[in-house]
Each structure stands twice: as C-alpha cells, then as structure tokens.
C-alpha cells in the first residue's frame, strides 16, 4: 500500500516520546523562575535600548515635529512592528482552527507577541500627530476615507490598533486560563498570587473547557478580522494615500501577507531561543520547525506573487500614474532598498527554505527567519520612506510630477528603530517571566492526542482528531 511513511522511511527518525503530565507542569512552570545571567544581561541591554529609542522619539518630535517628510523611517518602523507583533499571534490561531496538532505546544509563544503591540502604539503616537490632514487649503487628498470627517485616518487607525492590542491580549488570556490555574496550584510567591487572581476559579470542568474553546475561536476570528483591517488602514493611510497617483488595490493585502510572513519568522526565532536556552527540546519538537518552515516558504512565495502582480500592472500600464509610482517606489530613490528587499525577503529565504533538510533543522531556519525580518524592514523602508518624503504641496496632485530625493536616516531614526525593535524583544522576554513560555495544557493535550508508534518497518505518529 502506498504510504508516505514507507516512502520516506529512510529520511525520518522516531518521534520523541511523550512526557508525563506532572513532569510537563513542573518543568514548564519552572521556566518562569531562575533566569540565567545571559538572559538578564540581554533583558537589561534591550530595556536600555528601548528607553533610548523612546527618548529619541520624543526628541525627534520636538525637533522635527513640523516636517512630515522626515518621518518616513518611523512610519516604516510602525508598519514593521505591526507586521511582527500582529502577525505572530496568527500562528497561534490559524493552524488551531485548521486542527493542526503540531501547533499546540507553541501557541503561547506566538500569543506573547500580542503584548509587544504596545511598542507599535508608542511609535504611532507622534506619527498620528504629524499625519497630514485630509483637507489642506480647501483641497482634499485621495484616501479611502472619501468624504469622511478630517480626523478619520488619525482617529480610526489609532483606535483599530488599540483594539488589535486588546483583542490580542484577550486571545492570550482566554487560552492562558488553565495555565494560570496551574500556576496557582504549583507555583510560589507572586506568581502563585497572580495565578490565583487571573485563573478566575478555573478547575477544569466540562463547561469551563467548552467555554474556553469557544472563546479562543471567537477571539481568534475577531483578531484575524481586526488584523486585516488594521493592515488595510495603516498601509493606505500611512503609505499609499501619501503619494499622489499611487493606486494599488493589492497593497493592503501585500502588507498583510508580508505581516504574516514576519509573524511566522518572529515565532521561529522566539522558538529557537526558547528551545536552546530554556532547554525545551523535549517540548518544542522539530516537527514544529518543519511545519513552520513550510508555512514560511509558502508565505515567501506568496509575497513575491503579490509583489509581481502589482508590478506587472504598473509596468504594462505606462500611464503617468504608473510611471511615477514605479519611479518613486522601485526605480528611483529606493532602488537599493528594492534590490536588498527582494534578495532578503524573497530570494535568500526561498533558497534556504526550499530544502527539506533545512526545514527539519533549527539553525538554518532561524537564519532564514532573521533574513526575512531584515528584508521586511528594508521593504517597509522602501515603501513608507519615499511615501512620506513627498512634500505637502504635492500631495493633492493627480500624480507625482517630481520624484523626491532619497531620504537617509538621521541619528534619531536609527535610535528609534533600534529602540522599537528592542522594545518588542524586551516585552516578549519579560512575559516569559510571568507565564510559561509554552502552554502547559496544550503541551499535555498534544501528548494526549499524538502518540509515537511503529508502523510497518518505520516510525509514525498516531494523531487523534477530536471534533
């Protein structure tokens, strides 16, 4: 009988044995305490960088708050942070909805990124103040807000980002209830008190479990919808509508898909470091990297597809709009960023992730993920910096008649970008001190539903699929 298990037997090894439930609880709760010296040093370093970044943001606002052309790098950073912190929790949701067993142990690490959405909001605050109004000198620029009140992009984008943060945290909290109860029952000190307060009387009755699953499904779906909406608003209000004549219907989807790509890359990196430095090899199996690798590979291909779908229409269109848009975003001031982004966001990850051996390992997976994140940052710079570099007096034109010069980052921009990215890492690391980095109940559920078995001459896993 045809069987993939038999066909690829030689390439595979036995799946790791299941771990006893008590050991899971004890070991995972222990990860919240006893941080290593290296962990502390990194946390301090990232914390200091975060503070420096926020201070630089305030100073930049005081110094350059009246010139929107100088805020392109901050806009690119906001978009980048939204992509990583907004996209990562989707890893916790999408495969769960598709009932993929491999994702169960790693949903927590993905959900922790929700808290890092705070960094996006902090960086957004001055940008909202600087965003040009819809109507200036009686002329209304093109936006998706058409005839809506002037404050619409400023107000609704901020509100939707806050809503995304709240929903992300609600999603995290809904899935964390049983773990807070575990902390209540098995932890000590402030963690035990926190567990007791947040577990809200969780004892694991049938009704509680049913409610928990319903909440995860509900918040997950809601989170996905808000995430797509936020990506739509940020990409149009803070990108496309800043450039006269740039009409690109696919751009919001392009922004969303590259956000998912960054989110998965962020989760892979977090998984790698947790696995290696918290000694979680027993719980974070290679299976997770293998599946995330395939997801990352598919998203990498989807990115180039979306990019090309947009590019070919502009390229063939040849209208003044089309030519000006290509000149601004690809051929003109950002040509180096375009090539760098193309290599780092598509070509290198594609070439790394196409190999089965890479996806079955961890080292090259994490390299590929770092490359993707760097590539995404450059790609966001390519799109948002030139968009913000368009002078205010040109923003109402039918198309861009004068292509602005390349805008290079100043010292504030560099410090803000370093600070913003550090703040994300800092928040995620701090959250691992509060709650186990892997979901205790989901690891136990994973062990319950998936059993390593011998199948004919090879190894296989028997995966139960409850409805």
């Amino acid at each position: 009988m045809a069987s993939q298990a038999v066909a690829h037997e030689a390439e595979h090894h036995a799946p790791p044995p299941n771990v006893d439930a008590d050991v899971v609880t004890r070991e995972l709760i222990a990860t919240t305490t006893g941080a290593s010296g290296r962990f502390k040093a990194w946390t301090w370093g990232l914390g200091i960088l975060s503070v420096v970044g926020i201070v630089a943001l305030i100073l930049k606002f005081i110094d350059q708050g009246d010139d929107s052309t100088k805020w392109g790098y901050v806009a690119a950073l906001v978009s980048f942070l939204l992509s990583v912190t907004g996209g990562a929790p989707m890893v916790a949701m999408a495969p769960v909805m598709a009932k993929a067993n491999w994702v169960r142990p790693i949903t927590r690490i993905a959900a922790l990124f929700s808290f890092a959405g705070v960094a996006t909001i902090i960086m957004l605050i001055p940008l909202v103040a600087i965003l040009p109004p819809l109507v200036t000198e009686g002329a209304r620029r093109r936006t998706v807000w058409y005839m809506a009140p002037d404050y619409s992009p400023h107000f609704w984008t901020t509100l939707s980002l806050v809503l995304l943060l709240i929903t992300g945290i609600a999603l995290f909290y809904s899935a964390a209830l049983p773990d807070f109860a575990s902390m209540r029952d098995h932890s000590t000190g402030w963690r035990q008190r926190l567990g007791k307060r947040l577990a809200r009387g969780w004892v694991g009755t049938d009704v509680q479990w049913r409610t928990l699953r319903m909440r995860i499904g509900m918040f997950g779906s809601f989170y996905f919808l808000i995430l797509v909406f936020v990506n739509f608003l940020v990409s149009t209000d803070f990108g496309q509508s800043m450039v006269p004549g740039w009409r690109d219907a696919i751009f919001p989807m392009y922004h969303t898909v590259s956000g998912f790509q960054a989110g998965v890359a962020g989760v892979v990196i977090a998984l790698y470091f947790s696995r290696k430095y918290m000694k979680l090899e027993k719980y974070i199996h290679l299976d997770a990297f293998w599946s995330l690798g395939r997801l990352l590979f598919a998203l990498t291909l989807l990115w180039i597809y979306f990019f090309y779908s947009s590019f070919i229409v502009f390229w063939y269109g040849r209208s003044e709009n089309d030519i000006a848009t290509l000149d601004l975003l690809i051929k003109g001031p950002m040509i180096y960023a375009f090539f760098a982004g193309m290599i780092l966001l598509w070509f290198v990850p594609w070439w790394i992730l196409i190999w089965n051996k890479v996806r079955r390992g961890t080292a090259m997976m994490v390299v590929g993920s770092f490359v993707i994140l760097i590539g995404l940052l450059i790609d966001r710079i390519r799109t948002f910096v030139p968009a913000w570099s368009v002078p205010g007096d040109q923003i109402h034109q039918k198309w861009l008649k004068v292509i602005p010069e390349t805008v290079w980052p100043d010292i504030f921009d560099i410090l803000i970008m370093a600070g913003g990215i550090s703040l994300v890492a800092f928040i995620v690391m701090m959250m691992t001190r509060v709650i186990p980095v892997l979901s205790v109940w989901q690891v136990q559920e994973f062990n319950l539903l998936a059993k390593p078995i011998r199948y004919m001459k090879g190894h296989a896993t028997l995966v139960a699929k409850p409805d």
Partner: protein
Amino acid sequence: MQQRRELDQVYTNRKLLNGQLDTPKWWLPTVSILGVVVLIGVVVIATMINKGLGVTGLARPVYWGLFITTFVFWVGISHAGIMISAILRLTQAEWRRPVTRAAELLTVFSLLTALVFPLIHAGRPWRIAYWIMPYDISRGIYPNIRSPLIMDPVAISTYLTGSTLFLYIALLPDLGNLRDRTTGWKNAMYTVLSLGWRGNPRQWKMQTVGGILLSALMLPIFVSVHSIVSWDFAVAAAVEGWHSTIFAPYFVIGAVHSGVSAVVTMMALMRWLWKWDDFIRPEHFDALARLLIVVATGWLAFTFLELTFALYGQDAPEIALREMQMFQWPWNALFIIFFLTAYAIPVPMWLFKRVRTNIALMFWTSILVNIGMWLERFLIIVPGLARRTPFVYTWEAYRPSAVEWTIFIWSFAWVTFLMLLFSKFFPLVPLFEQKESQVFTEDVMIGRAKIPAIIREAD
C-alpha cells in the same frame, strides 16, 4: 471529521467499479441526450466559423462578450483539481480522498473546453497557426510574446499537460485493478494503459513520490494560469475597471471559490447517480463547505478592495463605470444576483452544520455560487467595454445572440458528456485512495471517549 466506517475491500471494488463493470440504466439515455446537444453545438460553431462573428452580438465597443466570459469561467472551474488534489494532498487533509479524481477530471475537461472559446472567438481560427509558426517576422506578424494574450495559451496548455499527467499517475493503480477484472478489448486497453502496474513496493513508492512532486510543481502553474488570464484585462490601461493590481489574486481566489463549488455539485451528483453513500459522505461536504466559507470570505475581501480602490482614484470615468455597474439597468439586476448568489445566500447558510451536511442544500448552494461567479466575470468584462465614451457612436447595448447562448450551453453539455464518457471506462472515486484511508485511520480511546485518529509519517 474522520468518521471512520469499516468497508471491506471486496465491497469497495464492487461499488466503485460499478460504472465500468456494469452500465447504470440512466447512463445511455443521458449520454445520448448530451451527445445531441454537443452535436448541435458543434454545428453552430461550424456555422459561426463559416459565416463569421457577425452572427454573434459582438460589435464595437463590446468586442469581448459571452465567449470570453465563459472562457474565464471554465478556466476558473479548472482550479478545482489542483486545489483539492494537490494542495490538500500536500497539507495531508484526509477528507480529500474520495474527491480527488473528480476534481482532477473537472480540471482537465474544463480546460479543454476553455481553450475552445478563444479559438472560435478568433473568427478565423486557422490563423492561430501563425502564432505557432509565424510566416513573416519582418512584417510584425510574429506574435508579441510580451503580451498576456500569448502567455495565456502557453500557461493553459502547460496546465492542461500537467493536470493530465497528474490525473493519469493517480489512475495507474485503478487501471491495474480494472485490467485484472476485465476481459477482451477492455482488458487489452487497461493492460496498455496500466503500464505494467503490479502494486509492488517500488511502484507504490514511485507513484507516491510522483504524486507529491507533481503536486508541488503544479502549484505555481495553478496560480499562474488565472493570474495570466487576469492580466489579459489588467494590463489594458484603456478600459476602466480593468487596470487594477489586485486582479491576479482576485481572479485566482474567485477561481478556487468557483472550482471547489463545482466539485461539490459533482460530488452530490456522483453520490446520487452511482449510489456511493458509503464513500461520499456528509462529512466530506461538511469539510468542503468549511473550506468554501474561508475561500468565499477571502474572495469577498478582494472584491471589497477591488471596488474600494476603483473609487479611490476619484477619476470620473471610473466612477461612471461603477455607477453603471451597480445602479443602471440591467447591470444593477445582474450585480444584485451576482452578490446574492456568489456570497450572500450560500455562505451564511454554510455556517450551519445542518446545511453543510445536507447534500441537496449543498448541491443547490454550490450551483448558486457558480451562477454568481459566471456573472462576476460578465460584469467585469462587458460593462467596462459597453460604457459610452467619447468617439464611440454605437448606441446599442450588447445582447448575446442565440448563437452565443447555444455555444454557452454546449460547453456545459460537453463537459458533462466527457465526464460521463470517462465514468464508463475509469472509476470516478480512486479505489486506492479509499483503501488507503481505511488503513491510515483508526479509533483510539482517550479517557472514555473513542476518537478517530490518523497515522502520520514521523518527521
């Protein structure tokens, strides 16, 4: 999802080969009626080629009408095969197994049908030969290879070749099975076609690896085909409503919506006609409906973006076109029907498990989707051309002629006719997939609950 049902192999063989080893009573009359319709269609096509495109309703400025709409529709339907067979195979979705063959078949036959439309639409189809063998490159008769109109036939024929190969490789074990159960000329045919299939481990391994490799190779082709079809329109900057960057993914996701719905229609028919209740079960419809909810909602998001960014430019001609599409008779009626049938009626219904597992309701809602998706293509193609613009002095609206409608009906009869013909010689549900699913599924006890489980290869 995997509601395990024990079926022994003899029963599986007998039931799934009932189309080949016996002839159902309805088969011959149905095929005969369809054959007559096909014949009428062929005569009409021949007449049109003889008389010229004047017998159609096509006239400037509407030079693309029912034929190109139906061409795009059938290319869209062809996306069923790879979506169901390749993508679900790569993602190891167990429920795909009874559906794969029908989906692959739909791909092959709908592509064959789609190819006919641009050919007959050319008016003098023999001149297509110049595209393949240009006789005078210096006079610029050589086709412009940068044009999507040239990329189109290349992509579609590559897709057709790949899909046929894909279908054939998956057929091999079943052909071996039929060879061992037939005599006479049928036995000779299956002997040749089964390529010496014996079912030894090496052959199974090759067949499995071949299927996986082809799945992965077909995916980019699958995406490229409808993308290129969309660029036929999107790169034409002169027609309002066409020059949109979102067209490629919008067309692809629309094609998947349409194709998967067509598979649902076909599954319901297969279950009713061949009485395959044990093989095509409500849970398969349930799974497909869940997939369709996701796909349809994604498609709706793309529709929203397409409309939003059409108005975003605030260009007067574009706004006038959208106004015509949505608010002027008869386009407004078509637009409402399109929206209701493609999304607003079926998707809310699919949210209920009772509907998802009701085969009759799934059948009718899947047909609704395809009515809507055909109208969607019509509304994209025709109004953009039909809108009155400066220097266009044709004041009559486009009305498809009887010739066009006959050829349109012919295309459906032709695909069904080919399907039924195929079913006489080859099983529509893959036997080996069915048996493999029996081997790879078992029940496990977790606590006091009996849970269906699947054996997966270890990574």
